[in-house]
Structures are given as structure tokens and as C-alpha cells.
């Protein structure tokens, strides 16, 4: 027999790296994150400068909200395994919660912190549903039966086998909250709610500055959402570890 020593992590990375859309999306997000601090200090540079300068105020709250949604959603999905159902989360995913989240700072005050918290809560059901499915599938896999049969203790079974195997799909599920969170932050800028930084957010630029900056902001919103979605799909493919045979 020929022994391939390629680890599952390497396999997952290669799966991600061989998807041009996922790579391009990741590259776009890196550029959008790295570029703004390097911009020359020249507000007269035009609409693109303004849009790029507004990137941290847009991606920052979106990333924070997505991370918080990931934590809440994963806990929700895990608890729903123990309590029996995920129906409530499933029903919430069909409601226009991002709209409500975008309006929350306008209604209740609290600025960016309120926007992040409301967005996290709005996006959490979208994480809870796939997290629940992932953990439920893991718990029912024959692998768990086989490992129990091989004498693996329950605590090791969870910490060493179930969670590491679930980590990839869970990360992909958490990433899934990023695009809706970004959309919510942009929406809040459009309606003048939430972030009030020096250069505003992409959403604020869409309605409150020149046509040139609005076009640039619209391009960045489109690119950001497309990049977040493409990376999410790449992660979902990469997370299917063990299915390469």
C-alpha cells in the first residue's frame, strides 16, 4: 500500500485554495483591511479615498457582530441539541431581522455598541441552525459508536474527536454570519443609524456625500458582500474533511 501522509488540515487548505472565487474573496477582504491605514492623508483625493477610509468603520462592526453572532449561535445550536428543538431559530431566520437591527441604534441609542449587539442577535439564528445540524450529525455518526466501542472515554470523545471534527463546519457556519452582518451595518449607515465616525460607513457614503463617493461605496459594498460569500462557500467546501475519497 502507498501511504499518503497529507494531513486533513492540508487537504482542507488545498480545497479552499483551489477555488479561485474563495481565494479572490479572501484577497479582497485582506486588501480592504490592510489598505485604509496606508492611504495618504489627503481628504481631497476624491470618492474612492472616502470609501476606502470608511472601510474600518464598516468592516470592524460587521466582523465584531459576526463573531458575537457566531458565539451566540453556536451556543444556541448546542443548547437546542440538549433541549430538543431548533424550530424557534429556524422560524427567526425568515424574518427581516437585519432591518430591525439596523434601526436599533436609532430607536434605542447606544451607537456602534448597540448596532453590534443588535446585529449579532439578528444574525445568531442563521448560525444556530447550521451549528445545530453539524453537532447533531456528529453525535449521530457511526464514528462516535465506533470510538465508544474502541474504549474512548466520553470526555475525550467530545474534546478530541467530536469537537475537532465539528470545528470546520462550525467555522463555516460562523463565517456565514459575516455577509448579513455587513449588510446590516451598511443598512444602518444608509438610514443614518449607528456608526458616526469621521468618514462614516459605506452605508453613510451611499446617501450623504457626493455621487462619486456613493458610487465608490456601492462598489465596495458589492465587493465586500461578494467576497464574504465566496470565502464562506470556500470554507464550507474545505470543511468537508474526510470526504475526499
Amino acid at each position, binding site marked *: 500500500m502507498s501511504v499518503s501522509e497529507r494531513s486533513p488540515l492540508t487537504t482542507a487548505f488545498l480545497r479552499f485554495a483551489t477555488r479561485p472565487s474563495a481565494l479572490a474573496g479572501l484577497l479582497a477582504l485582506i486588501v480592504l483591511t490592510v489598505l485604509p491605514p496606508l492611504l495618504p492623508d489627503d481628504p481631497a483625493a476624491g470618492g474612492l479615498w472616502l470609501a476606502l477610509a470608511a472601510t474600518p468603520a464598516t468592516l470592524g462592526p460587521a466582523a465584531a457582530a459576526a463573531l458575537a453572532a457566531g458565539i451566540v449561535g453556536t451556543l444556541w445550536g448546542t443548547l437546542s441539541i440538549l433541549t430538543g428543538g431548533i424550530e424557534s431559530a429556524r422560524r427567526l431566520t425568515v424574518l427581516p431581522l437585519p432591518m430591525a437591527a439596523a434601526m436599533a441604534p436609532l430607536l434605542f441609542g447606544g451607537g456602534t455598541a448597540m448596532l453590534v449587539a443588535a446585529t449579532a442577535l439578528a444574525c445568531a439564528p442563521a448560525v444556530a441552525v447550521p451549528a445545530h445540524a453539524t453537532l447533531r450529525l456528529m453525535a449521530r455518526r457511526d464514528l462516535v459508536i465506533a470510538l465508544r466501542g474502541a474504549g474512548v472515554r466520553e470526555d475525550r470523545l467530545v474534546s478530541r474527536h467530536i469537537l475537532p471534527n465539528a470545528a470546520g463546519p462550525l467555522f463555516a457556519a460562523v463565517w456565514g454570519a459575516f455577509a448579513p452582518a455587513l449588510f446590516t451595518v451598511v443598512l444602518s449607515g444608509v438610514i443614518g443609524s449607528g456608526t458616526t465616525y469621521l468618514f462614516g460607513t459605506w452605508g453613510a457614503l451611499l446617501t450623504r456625500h457626493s455621487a462619486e463617493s456613493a458610487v465608490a461605496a456601492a462598489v465596495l459594498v458589492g465587493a465586500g458582500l461578494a467576497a464574504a460569500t465566496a470565502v464562506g462557500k470556500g470554507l464550507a467546501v474545505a470543511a468537508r474533511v*474526510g470526504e475526499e475519497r
Partner: protein
Amino acid sequence: MSPRLEITGLTVRDGRETVLASTDLTLAAGEIVACADPGGMMLRALAGFLPRGLSAGWTLRIDGTPVEGAAGFAEALKTGRIAFVPWNAERALSPHLPLSALFEEVPWETPAGPGEIQRRARAALVRMGLSLEPEKLAVRAAELARPARWRVALALATAAGPRVLLAEAPARDLDGTVRGAILARLAAWARDTGAAVLLTGQGGDGLAAIADRIVPVQEEPSDLNIRSEDATDPDDQPRLTVRDLRVAVPVGRSLTGAVRWLTVIDGVNFEIDRGGSIAFLGESGSGKSMLARALARLARPTRGTITWRGKNLVTVPNETMRGLRRDIQFLSSDPFEALDPLYRVGTQIEESLAELRPDLPPAERAGVVRAALETAGLAASAARAFPPSLTAAEAARAGLARALAVEPELLVCDEPLAKLGEEEAEALLATLLDLNRKGLMLVFATEHARWALAAARRILVLHGGHVVEDAPPVELERDARHPLSRALVALARGTVSDLEGDGTGRGGRGCPMRPRCPKSQAYCANSPPPLERIGSSHFVACHGWDEGDGDE
């Protein structure tokens, strides 16, 4: 007189490489030929469905008339001279169209109105063993069970009376007994109508049972000639005793909030002596896997006892049971699901050793891993491999190595050969039998009588969670008395069973087998038959076990 079907020079090439060497076949009217074609190239070449990059050449004649190339083949399909049944025909049925609409697409030789089409459709369905009331032709394929969908697919293929039927392993994914009944219907149709039938598949697809001729491309496995040798010490007390075992699983709650249970195993009794072996034989849903899992306490029985060396495994605390796992190891049906894809094979075997053989110094574990891999038939280098990089057979042996590393006394195998090819399955079975000869007790769950007859010194045939026949393999092979046992043994012999229909056999009064049993009598509906002794070590649960010749 011209043969009904004549294929000459069928060749498939991948660039310069020959994938299928030149093949000639001639079929007479009413003849059924099975052709071993594991790659599935043969019929796809004729039908023009080859993957990109492959090319095929052939000449084909039907009743002496040439069919010219892929266009000619398509024309013959359209005019109904040829019918082609792909391997996934039952899944290819339009799920949301009523059956009557599916039959309207059939290339009828003579035009027919809707009423006539319905009549012909019913006749074709009945011929394939699916009796439907006239209004039931409004049923959609999606509403039918898989066996019924296969019957519909074959009825559609045969309805217009094609001269030639080409089929890729029809009903391959069904239980052997159900598949056998469907194939028998197909064979009867061919002989009645004089159609030539060319079937392709591989060993284990059950095609040999109806074929007049087998084109030997791949050697068929030697069916019943491997025998488990008796290593049992008759003076020993039973090592494992099972009494009145019941396993039930919760399936939801009733309106009052009470938990509803499905009984998967009920009233099972047996024992295994030291070094002995037993096989659980049954169709899908018979409970054999659940019984195997219950023995390793991977499913919790709700009643009864499993006594292992004086301890009742049903009630021992979890910590005690973990200690007993060194004695009782479990082999899963899916070799890839037995191993964690994230860790190397060697690491996983060492983990098992650390848990179950804490007496073994860590420095010695690598040597034990190496020895276990070699005993299981793998090279020591397999320890470095990650499971996804292994083949199914290698993964199955890696799982076996993990089980053997802790030096168990009993190995519970839950359909260990199910996901392997014929040759790999034979080889793994030989390894298991060798281990059994050396004293390892073996429990072996399978749906193939061929493996059960070879693997065990006692066989329990299960249906609907109950033991319906319990006998040594020689007696079961020679004189099976329960209709299900007879059907399963017939399949192992390569003949067709007389069992009809399918089902798990749960619920209802009377004998659960009676809707499928060809010898069912009115009294069979009165009560379920008890398991009664009919020989020194032969038990059967059938009201009519003594009616008719057991050897027919």
C-alpha cells in the same frame, strides 16, 4: 435464423489505452445473459453515455438488422426495439408525474388512446409484481417505496415489448430477496416474449440467479466453500449468554406526552462458547445491526440479560463496561466511519491501547500497533496514514487492527464486508476466520447468507427483530425451513427465491412474514409463530415449517 441480438467488436478506449477489450456477444430470443462489467462501461458505450474522453466502437444487429452507431441506437430506443435500464432507473423516474403519465411516454408499437394505455400499463406493472387498482395509476413515483419504483422502471422498459432489453444491475441496491423476486419477474417476461436480455453488473448483484449464461470477465467468488473450522472447546461453559433480550428506541412522543417506543429486537436468546462464532442473518431493518451493537453495549437493551464472564452487560455501570471493552471489541459496517479522519491510524490505535491496556508501557505501544496492523493484513507503514487516504479495504483492516491491538476475546462485527468489493470481502472474511481459528470469538451480522454460512458455527435468521430460524450453517444450507431463510440461502446459491414484496415485518397480528410468504395459509393470520425446536439444534418460527419439501 438470425440471433435476436448480436454485438461484435465492442471496444472502449481512453486515448491509446484500451478500457474494454473487444467483446463479442450473441443472444438468442428469450435468452438472458449476465456480463460482469464492474466499470459499467459496456452498456453505456452502446447507449452513447460514456464519460468525456472515452470512445467506443461496435457493431450491433437486432434480428439481423444492423443498428448503425449512436444515432441508430437512439432511433432503436425511440421506436421501442431496444429498452435501456440504467443503474439508477428508479431514481430517474419523474417524481411528480403520475404513473399513467409516465406510461404515455412509452414508445408503443401500435397507437393507443388513454384507456388502452392504462390497460397496457396495468398489465406491465402486474407482470413486474406491482398490482394497482385502476385509480392508483394516478400515484406519483415519489410516493412509492424503492422496490416499487424499481418495478415501475422495469414495467416502463418492458411495456412496449422491446426485442432487446439492456439493463445495468437492476435493483442492485435492494435487499437480495426483494431483488431476486423482481429479477425473476424480468426473466419470466423475457422467456414469455422472446426478448433478449443483457444484464451487466458485478459479483453480488444477484444476476447469476436468472441468467442462462454468464460472460466471465471477472471471476466470481467461491460461494459456500469457506467453512469456519470448529475451535470450540465443548467442555467450556458458554462465554456469552443472551436471554430474552429486547432493544427499543424512542421515536417521539404521543399526544399525551408519553414517549413512544419502537421495539427493534425482542425475545432473543443464544449463547456462544469460548472460541465460538455466531452470525445474525437478515434483511435491512431486521435488527441484526442493533443486536450486534447491543452485545457491545453500544445500544442499551430495555429488557433481558447479556452475561459475559458472569457480568450482566445490560446493567453494569459505565466504568465497569469500559473495562470490559478490552474483552469485547466492535467492528463497524462503514470502514471510514470507524476511524477519525483527523488522526493517523497509528495514533488512533495507540489511543485505544492507552485507554484499554493501561498496563502497557507507552514505549511498547508502537510495537503493539505494528503487530496489530500486520495481523490485520496491513503493512506497518499504514500507522502513518490518515484514514481518508486509505481504500475501503485498507480502512476496514485498520479498524480491525485497532480492535485486535487490545487483544479482545470477542469481536462483534456489524456487516464488516458490506462496503467492500467481492475480492476484498473474501480476503477480509478469510482473515476473520483465521482469527476465529486461533480462538477469537466472532459475532457476525450480515444480510448475505453466503458470508453467514461461511463465517459462523451457528446462524440466527432475524426478521422484524425476532429470531425466525436458528440452526448450524450446514443444516440451514441443506434444510432451511423458514421462508426467509430459504430465500436467503437460495440467493447464496445463485438461485431465485419465491419470496415476494418487502418490509421489516413489524406490526399487525399473525405471522409478520405472511404478506410475502408463498405458502401463507389463513391460520397464519391468527398469531405470530413461536420459535420451536424441530431438530437437535434447529429452531424455527413458522406455522408451516413442516409443509412441503425443505430442499426445493
